[in-house]
């Protein structure tokens, strides 16, 4: 039998970005907050130090910061007619583990949605006509608008010290920013990052074509920054070890570098690590969540009551926990009924590699959220819906590459394979 513990006011299931932000807010409001994290404690000085953080094999290829499929995985099928099979190793999406979650190894690309993204269904019907949306497209309006969310975007950007250049401040278009973004109350808290050569070339070419290139909004610091909680982040050193790496330099906004130094000291906050929630328990009416069941590292089972229970792990784990707990109506793709598990979407990005024989690009200099972007095709008026035209799908982006074995590319004519000269890898080769 699970041992029943004293109740808390609020409980976080998972302690990454979401859990840390919610815990910070709710403890400020005076509640007693407990966070349960499946992984272990992790902090910059001990786990991500600059003496070993730049280890491409350990972090990029061997996935040291991610959830292990051996511990917990999902099953995969492409449509309901197939038999779902286990995902045996991680692939396109990389759920984090330990305190800070995937926020530890993110790149720091910090976009706001466009105002039209919040009303994706009605916006597209209005723009392209009633017949424009295919029947099978389950796209919906979010039920919340850009204007409602703007103050929270602003607050998050200040918490993280986002580097960038506003394109629209209170309706006034700003040169150098993205003129197609929604109106912002304020400029970014930090100026854009210094640009390396490849994005600079891209931006010049885009400008020459009449487009409006702007710097990638970035949670990598363009300068040292102290956030509203009094936590200091340091200037990014453009080492290039961001995606799939933790930052040893306190230069990437994460829960660790923005919130935890304040939150962990609060008397009304507690974190229990290596505790995995297996079920959310409901009261006798089945309408109200009253506690969670969790297992600690030694296999002991506990019941932890709470007045407020927050699902703050990755969306797939949140959904699975809801399904296992019998909460909500599961989505049925045949009937379209139900909402639990509906409309999961993951990022899809395509890329083109460019090679320059006449330029030294030093593509290893950069950061995870560092580059120049063009957003014309998302936002400008077009007579064709974006999903119906392969040429008008999205923004274009130029960023520097990663380390050597991560993104070393070569022209097709010099492709790896037997009997090819190693000349395919040139010191000046550019990527993306």
């Amino acid at each position: 039998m699970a041992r029943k513990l004293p109740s808390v006011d609020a409980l976080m299931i998972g302690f990454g970005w979401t859990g840390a932000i919610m815990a910070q807010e709710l403890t400020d409001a005076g509640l007693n907050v407990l966070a349960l994290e499946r992984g272990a404690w992790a902090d910059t000085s001990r786990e991500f130090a600059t003496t070993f953080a730049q280890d491409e094999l350990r972090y990029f290829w061997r996935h040291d910061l991610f959830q292990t499929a051996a511990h917990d995985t999902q099953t995969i099928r492409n449509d309901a007619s197939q038999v779902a099979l286990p995902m045996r190793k991680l692939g396109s999406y990389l759920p984090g583990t330990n305190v800070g979650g995937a926020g530890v190894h993110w790149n720091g690309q910090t976009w706001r949605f466009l105002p039209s993204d919040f009303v994706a269904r009605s916006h597209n019907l209005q723009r392209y006509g009633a017949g424009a949306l295919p029947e099978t497209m389950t796209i919906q309006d979010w039920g919340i608008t850009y204007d409602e969310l703007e103050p929270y975007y602003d607050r998050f950007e200040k918490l993280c010290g986002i580097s960038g250049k506003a394109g629209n401040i209170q309706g006034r278009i700003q040169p150098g920013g993205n003129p197609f973004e929604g109106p912002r109350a304020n400029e970014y808290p930090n100026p854009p990052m210094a640009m390396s050569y490849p994005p600079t070339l891209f931006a010049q070419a885009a400008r020459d074509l009449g487009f409006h290139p702007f710097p990638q909004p970035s949670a990598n610091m363009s300068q040292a920054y102290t956030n509203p909680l009094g936590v200091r982040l340091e200037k990014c050193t453009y080492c290039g070890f961001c995606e799939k790496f933790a930052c040893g330099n306190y230069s990437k906004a994460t829960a660790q570098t923005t919130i935890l130094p304040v939150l962990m000291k609060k008397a009304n906050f507690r974190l229990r690590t290596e505790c995995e929630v297996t079920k959310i328990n409901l009261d006798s009416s089945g309408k109200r969540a009253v506690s969670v069941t969790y297992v600690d590292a030694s296999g002991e089972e506990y019941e932890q009551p709470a007045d407020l229970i927050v699902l703050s792990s990755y969306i797939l784990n949140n959904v699975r926990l809801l399904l296992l707990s019998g909460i909500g109506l599961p989505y049925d793709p045949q009937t379209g009924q139900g909402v639990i598990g509906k409309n999961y979407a993951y990022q899809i990005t395509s890329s083109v590699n460019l090679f320059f024989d006449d330029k030294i690009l030093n593509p290893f200099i950069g950061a995870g959220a560092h580059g120049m972007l063009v957003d014309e095709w998302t936002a400008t008026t077009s007579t064709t819906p974006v999903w119906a035209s392969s040429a008008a799908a999205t923004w274009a982006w130029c960023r520097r590459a990663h380390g050597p074995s991560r993104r070393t590319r070569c022209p097709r004519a010099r492709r790896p394979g037997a009997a090819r000269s190693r000349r395919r890898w040139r010191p000046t080769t550019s990527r993306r």
Partner: protein
Amino acid sequence: MDEPRLSRRRLLTAGAVITAVPVVTAAAAATLGGSDVPFKEGQANAPLATDTGSSWSWFTDAEAAFVSAAVARLIPADDLGPGALEAGVPTFIDRQLAGAYGRGERWYMQGPWSPGLPTQGYQTRLTPAGMYRAAIKAIDAAVVRESRGASFAKLAAADQDAFLHRLEKGEVALDGVDAKGFFAQLLQNTFEGFWSDPIYGGNKDMAGWKLIGFPGARYDNSEFVAQHGQKYPLPPVGLTGRVEWIRS
């Protein structure tokens, strides 16, 4: 942000003193400085020299012969410098397969088992180490079956190239192993070995990094980010430093 690095160095070198002179440091506080530095310059922090190994951890001699021959064709030595063989890639792969990666420890390797569809990803029971073992055996058997020679390693370079091309396209039937999948795995591991930090046994003398002009485990490029089109001036450095730092 040099603080953690300096602290670590001090900690490590303090440890070295204790080991060297246990009687003196047993109780007393020490005053350090001047000529009395707690480390020997160029020695206390000497990086590990790349050790290409005198014996194999996982490979049999026949497997080592295959991998050595194959990686030498995937990244051959030429006038630009050493290839994968000279850079220790077989040692790298051998050590990887002998460890957690080779055992697939991070992978979900329980049932249900089914071949699945290509879009459902990796669905074989083979760990990486098991795949190498099965594939190399099947490849050498195919070489014999096709009357090409005694083993892949003994073929002429041009014949090895032709065989690797067929593997890559899945044109060789291998008993119990997907040829295309194995080729992709071998190529991936070859890249990893050629370009990962030398502590893992490959990229000897940072040959892979020198070839493409990558400066290694450096942590501060602030000075160079806006120097557009300029050659990066610093030599590569690994997680444990550079071989040049060892004073002979």
